[in-house]
């Protein structure tokens, strides 16, 4: 797909926001909450911030909500009836100001939810997204997007990617048909491109390893059996923090709520890092100790998904490392594997 380039002047960004809003879109954008920046639904342009490196949580909640109701049911005496969810209620959402790593996270989720059988909840929500990405002008040393074939200006997956230039105006790359249509419908917002080079405004993210070389190493039997995993996960606590903040982690649980009027079956987030994830009622646990669970997390992303789903299950955002209470640094560990194995 050929890409068109336009620009948006700094004082017409709110026009873009207001037009999107007036067309009935919900806008999911980064806002400041206490000391953190989180994505949330916003009403006013002024609520939005672009002054952050990473939000604590990813935006996966927009297509893979913490809780997704799968259907409702009604029980009257011995009769049981199931009621479908009204999929037409799924709103059009514009994701605003999302960084390229988070954007590409949707691709991993797509790989999981649509390989083999298709998950309609995910697909419907995905269809209703418009993604307005924002290149990164800042990074920290948890970021490693360039190690996994992405970068601070990567357009992959965005409908429109904005890059803020020196004078505050934006370069707007129209990546998808959806993005192009959006620009065409707002000619006063998307104006003639300026003569700036996007690369001048991107942060430099050092490449720590190369996923092309790492993946075959992760797939080797010796890597699986290596004492590396025990040594490097002794301090891991076995919580779900890393998985829950990760844009690509998609493990879930299916549960029922069957009290009172709320009779629903739903799916909710789960994590392979939790001991309970694999345990049988008998007490037998296929992944008995934390090193096996930590290994599963990295193997799933860098050995199994590349083979099975043809994607790397990690976009190098570093959210897991920032969220980890005990400084388990994923980039550092991957780099070590790449160097030693």
């Amino acid at each position, binding site marked *: 797909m050929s890409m068109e380039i336009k620009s948006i002047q700094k004082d017409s960004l709110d026009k873009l926001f207001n037009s999107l809003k007036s067309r009935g879109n919900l806008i999911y954008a980064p806002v400041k909450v206490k000391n953190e920046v989180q994505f949330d639904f916003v009403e006013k342009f002024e609520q939005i911030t672009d002054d952050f490196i990473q939000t604590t949580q990813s935006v996966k909640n927009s297509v893979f909500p913490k809780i997704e109701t799968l259907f409702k049911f009604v029980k009257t005496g011995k009769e049981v009836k199931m009621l479908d969810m009204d999929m037409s209620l799924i709103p059009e959402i514009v994701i605003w100001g999302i960084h390229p790593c988070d954007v590409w996270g949707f691709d991993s989720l797509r790989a999981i939810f649509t390989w083999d059988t298709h998950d309609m909840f995910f697909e419907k929500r995905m269809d209703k997204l418009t993604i307005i990405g924002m290149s990164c002008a800042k990074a920290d040393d948890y970021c490693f997007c360039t190690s996994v074939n992405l970068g601070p200006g990567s357009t992959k997956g965005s409908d429109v990617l904005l890059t803020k230039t020196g004078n505050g105006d934006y370069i707007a790359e129209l990546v998808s048909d959806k993005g192009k249509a959006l620009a065409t419908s707002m000619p006063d917002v998307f104006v003639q491109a300026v003569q700036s080079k996007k690369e001048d405004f991107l942060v430099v993210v050092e490449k720590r390893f190369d996923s092309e070389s790492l993946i075959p190493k992760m797939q080797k039997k010796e890597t699986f059996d290596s004492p590396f995993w025990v040594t490097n996960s002794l301090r891991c*606590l076995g919580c779900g923090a890393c998985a829950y903040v990760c844009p690509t982690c998609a493990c879930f649980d299916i549960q029922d709520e069957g009290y009172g009027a709320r009779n629903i079956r739903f799916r909710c987030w789960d994590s392979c890092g939790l001991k309970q994830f694999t345990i049988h009622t008998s007490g037998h646990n296929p992944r008995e100790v934390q090193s096996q669970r930590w290994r599963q997390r990295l193997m799933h992303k860098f050995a199994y998904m590349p083979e099975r789903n043809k994607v790397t299950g990690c976009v190098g955002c570093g959210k897991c*490392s920032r969220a980890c209470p005990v400084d388990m640094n994923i980039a550092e560990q991957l780099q070590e594997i790449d160097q030693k194995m």
Partner: protein
Amino acid sequence: MDSLRRKAQQLLESKEVDCIIGYNEGSSGNVHAGFITTPGQAEKLIFDDRCKQNLGVYLTKHEVMRLGKLAIVAPVPVMRTVLILTYECQIVENSVKVLGIGLDGQFLDFNEYADIEKYLTDHCNEHPEEDKKLIEKISAMSVEERWDFWHETLKPCIKCFACRQACPMCYCVRCQVECNQPQWIPVQSSELGNMEWHFMRAMHLAGRCTGCGDCGRSCPLGIPVHLLTFKMSDVVLDNFNTKAGLTIKEPSTLSTYKANDKETFIR
């Protein structure tokens, strides 16, 4: 710090212990737990203001226990953890070598747990000032205000259980959130369910919390759940005049009955 490193080195050289759980330099200016198994690595041990994690959490982790005889670098909350774990029969008295770090940051070479008890009689950690203020503020609220405060504060909880996993007192093989017959606490994160989860946890820590603050510190969303367990410590102190983990001679306050216990709080 040199005395700590020297002691560590000597313990490993003499094979008195197989592994020392301590603090190491981590990534991006962080410190993290290190598991030192050779005398040469003792150099990596550090201790400074950043070393706040309660390392006692590792004393009940299988893969750490498998390393052999353990020693642990122990600021005051870790000392208390060792004593609680002892009277709760999770570790055997004097089995884990305690390399104490006093409130003043000085290395303390304890021979046995009785020495720790002695030290703690007049060197117990207090809640940090800012937490004290917050607890006062919350305690001064009306019941309705307090409910709203916790409802709002706990709403974003994603139930990642980092708080539980970080807490050395949360060592249960099967946590109550994992019991499903009946399902006391909902599995998913939900507004009321989150409150049930955290209040249940606070109840189970009443009279057992060491005041390390790790539960709150671990939360990726910055939810101050430690205020709940801190408050429970205050309640236990007010009613029973006891603090957790100062002795191994008495089991936890809420599992002990004394004839002179005040019962006014049951009203």
